[in-house]
């Protein structure tokens, strides 16, 4: 049986992390490391790319692989270049909900559309945590945050649905309560030829907790009780898409072969 200690020694660059007590980001790090281990992927064949945000710190510096900690919103675009330049790399993007769908929404859309073979793990904590608890594109209507003190006038984006509509090869949503399912999905994502997207509903006790008026244990229980595969809308979890279609770097390779022969 795989022990946490083995995972830590093998895949974690350093601990303790800078995450708050009870933050889901540590769980996601744990899940990523285990998925890599299950697949027996050599560490030098994995590259982690992240943007700016608490969740961007999951791989950088904690995951013991080459890591590119980029600008806010752009990790998917950086990752696309990295993947195209070296298709042998498994390129894993870890991005917050703000990073991935706020400032970075466009890159997400186009990575899904062009089906570039990278894996994006989006940490959905419903808030801009690193900057102090502002409203995110994933914050529910009327919720109060420091930038929506009278309630959010906008609505939450159903990210996985949008990514599915944009053409991704693999889309799944889990919560930090669903550790085993999450690990399994990350494994699937990393082995998928095309673009894979895994949304993780995660707890941010410090800021999301303030909005929801819950502590991290309450949040985990809420994840357990409320998020179901047969739920609707943002509460639906599970695998949404799992298809095969031509992957971008493969297509580029085919072009080269076609042109050069």
């Amino acid at each position, binding site marked *: 049986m795989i022990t946490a200690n083995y995972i830590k020694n093998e895949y974690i*660059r350093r601990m303790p992390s800078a995450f708050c007590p009870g933050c889901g980001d540590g769980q996601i790090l744990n899940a990523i490391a285990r998925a890599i281990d299950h697949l027996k992927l050599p*560490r*030098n*064949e994995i*590259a982690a*790319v992240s943007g700016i945000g608490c969740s961007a710190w999951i791989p*950088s*510096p904690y995951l*013991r*692989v*080459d*890591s*590119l*900690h*980029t*600008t806010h*919103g*752009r990790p998917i*675009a*950086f*990752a*696309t*270049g*990295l*993947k*195209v*330049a*070296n298709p*042998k*790399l498994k390129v894993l993007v870890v991005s917050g909900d703000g990073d991935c769908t706020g400032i970075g929404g*466009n*890159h997400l*859309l*186009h990575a899904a559309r062009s089906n570039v073979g990278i894996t994006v793990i989006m940490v959905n904590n419903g808030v801009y945590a690193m900057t102090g608890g502002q409203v995110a594109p994933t914050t529910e209507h009327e919720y109060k945050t420091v930038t929506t003190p009278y309630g959010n006038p906008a609505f939450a984006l159903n990210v996985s649905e949008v990514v599915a509509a944009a053409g991704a090869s693999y889309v799944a949503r889990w919560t930090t309560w669903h550790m085993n399912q999450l690990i399994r999905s990350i494994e699937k994502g990393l082995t998928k030829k095309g673009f894979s997207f895994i949304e993780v509903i995660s707890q941010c006790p410090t800021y999301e907790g303030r909005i929801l008026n819950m502590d991290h244990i309450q949040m985990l229980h809420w994840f357990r009780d409320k998020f179901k595969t047969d739920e609707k809308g943002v509460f639906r979890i599970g695998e949404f898409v799992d298809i095969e279609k031509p992957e971008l*770097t493969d297509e*580029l390779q085919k*072009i*080269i072969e*076609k*042109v*050069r022969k």
Partner: protein
Amino acid sequence: MIEPGEYFVEGDLAAAYGAIKAGCKFFAGYPITPASEITQAMAELLPQVGGKFLQMEDELASISAIIGASWAGIKSMTATSGPGFSLMQENIGYAAMTETPIVVIDVQRAGPSIGQATRAAQGDVMQSRFGSHGDYENIVLSPNSVQEMFEFTVKSFNLAERYRVPVILLSDAEIGHMMERLVVPESINIIERKYAKTFDEATKYGDDLVPPMGRFGDGLELMVTGSTHKPDGTRDTGSPEIQSSLVTRLVEKINKNRKDIEDWEEMFTEDAEILVISYGATSRPAKGAVIKAREKGIKAGYFRPKVLWPAPENRMSKLKNIKKVILPEMSLRGYSMEIEKMFPGKFVHFPKVTGNVHTVSEILKKIEEELR
């Protein structure tokens, strides 16, 4: 692919040829007049040399992608014009901070904003050095012919790899769209990247202040970040010393190596009393005007920075006998602050912002006027 020999092509195409010859294997870009021809040429040429081309969703993505690719050990480039260049600024700063070699071509057009897309200008000179926030230095080249579009693109890659900085090839609609003879030489000097073979190697640098670069996939477990970081890549967003030493090195890396980087051309400067300083497209008529002025017995000189940033300050500060310096340029701001700084009290600005290059006779007339 792109055999040595003679071609008759436009500047944009020559730049694409240069990139291919320099070993560029990845281009990510977004169409924009008057740089689209570079993008289109790269789309066509790259697969022929086993390289890859991507049209991205925008310029933010384009520059991000080439930085990503550079860390995989691939020489990478993008090309754009003013509006796209503005959008790239945040990540030009990121490339400077992470010391990522990339080449960005900005084929300047008449601005500000959308302006006149097909017409020439030189309004991005200051932006090409100061467009991103914070303290950094990069290298900016200014070609004045189709031949130089080719040569300077090669040189841009060489400098980028040598100093691990973003290099800007600052062209304009005139040079980019102009057709002229291009001679592709038999042999071209190419500088290849110095790779770190161990994690440790990647954290150390010598007198040139340039650490060898790690490559993703080599097992070095690199940490690359645009946050302030220690030499080993560890993020440190609180220490005054780390901030100071990192930023100072990034700037000094260019300043210390100025002698190797600075490049210029000069004529009749020994005894010149009136000096015409000019760069890019404008330097063609400027040189012509100086020659004409000499024919008329005027002690005119010609000075042309080929590398705009770092500016050839050492050389300029030695041009002591000059009584007046005329700077014709297609901008109301352009390079004027630099030249005014170098020649205080002697500086005469001669901007033209019609979208057209100055003519020889306009500059000659200006020389004569200024002598009166």
